[in-house]
């Protein structure tokens, strides 16, 4: 008997029991839909995070205080005050780090802002450079819509000046003019010299809810300390990224008098390092959730086996008749095997469509929330895998019932009366 005819026979068999067929594949449909949704949303989330990580530009290098954490339980609490003003000076020397185009320290902390009776809890970012007035704009790609960033001179003189985010302006000033006004930050008076336009998230910073002041002023008057939370270094060319990382490491070890790399009190991270770490976390998460969802596929497979066994018993007479009319064991085996494979593959395809539709719907909602930062991704690989796995489930769980069917004797057609 030709394969095509076997397939046709199986399809006719499924059509005769439409409702049962539909109910049988529900487990597979749900399992595949769940996996497709997880894969799609996982890929979207990964892209979202990576875009943010890469928002600073791929030439960005971050120097962080302390040791690089070796695991979740490693708190790396040592040497968190290791990055100092002298380090900036050393990194700025072309003889130390020839390919650093920008070097900027960053110190941040939470702060209570007030203006008149209005108060607002916000993050204060200490940044800037004693030598270059435009470094903040260059690194973060933010430009005040009113006023301007403080200057290199302001950084040198610990000027109490501040640039405020859009949300901060709205909370403190409403419709009133903010530029030139004095606000209090943790009790200290600051003059508003610039206002940022609505910007949203850039890398890990939400500039809308932030105020930015010279790092010297912030450390001295707001945070009351001398160290930085990180130093951002921009390499002048992607080709020199690795060289620059090495130069930074050598320079800081020299300055901190470290000979054993295991005793480093700082670590250097590139955007690529960070991106890699984020990808691996989201991939593991997606794989884990998919594994959980595939339990549903397994349960679906057992459901198929169950229904196929019932079907074989119910159709004993039909099987016997077919055998009496000349069907071989292989003919019957394939008829039932193709029925179960057909069921699961159709279930898989429906699951892919539903999963795709669901994640597309969720993506629409997320796009409303996050703007263009969120993008719908259809997991083509997942779809192919879904159909393949469904087919295999049909094969594996259909084999036993199909064998039972093929073993029936033609006499059963007559005995079952």
């Amino acid at each position, binding site marked *: 008997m030709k394969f095509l005819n076997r397939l046709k026979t199986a399809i006719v068999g499924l059509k005769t029991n439409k409702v049962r067929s539909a109910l049988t594949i529900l487990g597979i449909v749900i399992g595949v839909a769940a996996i497709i949704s997880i894969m799609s949303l996982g890929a979207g989330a990964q892209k979202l995070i990576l875009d943010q990580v890469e928002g600073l530009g791929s030439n960005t290098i971050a120097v962080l205080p302390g040791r690089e954490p070796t695991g979740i339980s490693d708190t790396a609490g040592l040497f968190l005050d290791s990055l100092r003003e002298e380090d900036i000076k050393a990194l700025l020397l072309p003889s130390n780090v020839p390919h650093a185009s920008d070097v900027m320290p960053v110190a941040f902390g939470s702060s209570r802002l007030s203006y008149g009776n209005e108060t607002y809890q916000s993050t204060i970012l200490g940044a800037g450079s004693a030598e270059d007035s435009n470094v903040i704009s260059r690194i973060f790609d933010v430009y005040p819509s009113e006023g301007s960033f403080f200057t290199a001179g302001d950084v040198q003189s610990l000027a109490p000046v501040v640039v405020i985010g859009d949300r901060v302006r709205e909370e403190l000033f409403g419709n009133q003019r903010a530029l030139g006004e004095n606000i209090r930050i943790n009790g200290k008076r600051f003059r508003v010299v610039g206002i940022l336009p609505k910007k949203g998230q850039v890398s890990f910073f939400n500039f809308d809810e932030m105020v930015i002041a010279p790092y010297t002023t912030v450390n001295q008057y707001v945070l009351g300390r001398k160290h930085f939370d990180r130093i951002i270094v921009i390499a002048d060319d992607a080709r020199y990224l690795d060289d620059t990382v090495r130069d930074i490491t050598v320079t800081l070890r020299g300055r901190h008098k470290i000979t054993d790399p295991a005793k480093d009190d700082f670590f250097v991270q590139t955007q690529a390092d960070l991106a890699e770490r984020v990808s691996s976390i989201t991939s593991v998460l997606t794989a884990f959730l998919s594994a959980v969802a595939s339990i549903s596929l397994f349960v679906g497979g057992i459901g198929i086996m169950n229904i196929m066994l019932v079907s074989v018993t119910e159709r004993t007479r*039909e099987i016997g008749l*077919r*055998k009496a009319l*000349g*069907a071989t064991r292989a003919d019957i085996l394939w008829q039932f095997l193709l029925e179960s494979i057909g069921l699961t593959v159709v279930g898989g395809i429906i699951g892919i469509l539903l999963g795709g539709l669901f994640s597309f719907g969720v993506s629409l909602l997320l796009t409303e929330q996050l703007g263009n930062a969120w993008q719908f991704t259809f997991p083509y690989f997942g779809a192919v895998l879904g159909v393949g796995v469904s087919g295999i489930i049909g094969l594996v769980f259909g084999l036993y019932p199909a064998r039972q069917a093929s073993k029936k*004797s033609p*006499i059963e057609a007559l005995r079952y009366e």
Partner: protein
Amino acid sequence: MEIINAINLEKTYYTEGLETRAVRDVSLTISRGEFVAIIGPSGSGKSTLLHILGFIDPNTGGEYFFEGKNVNDYSDDEKAFIRNKRIGFVFQSFNLLARTSVLENVKLPLLYSDVPEKQWDERAKKAIDAVGLTHRLLHEPSELSGGEKQRVAIARALIREPEIIFADEPTGNLDSASGKSIMEILQKLNEEKNHTIVLITHETYTAEHAERIISLRDGLVERDSKVEKRNMASEFKK
């Protein structure tokens, strides 16, 4: 030429420790072109014997030669081929596929044959025409009378133009008019197409449509004789 040669056939069923010797010791030969009726009271082993002869159930004792070859020497697939091509079986309870048209029911044996698919419809229509059901081609079994159902079953048995047709009480569930038309078809197949026919019945009148009657009782052959005065369902040219 002998198609069937059975020697000391036995069939014993064991159900829950209970032994039923449905066929005890049956020897018979049937030649090509014969029309044989097997007659006997209910429970005498007629159906059991026919199932053995028709490759539907194996015997538990004795020897069965089909077309000169011992049945035990046929492989499973060869047996399937014989059921498909050499044998046509007509069941008392019709055994048609529900929710499936007359045409598709009759085509069923072709599904398991090497007949090219292009010829299926034409052959099925020819077989359906031979039993006079062309006007019911696309009807489903539930829309047919008992007599019509049995004619569909005969058309299905005919479609591979088998050497031998086994019919187990084909008229048993039918009224006398329908029964007569079935006997007419069987006689015609035997007379005009030279199909060998083995018919089971428990009515002497029906049995006398055959050329030869084998009487069974308690799983044994009681009598095997020629029919003196055959009943003809209608006139045929020999």
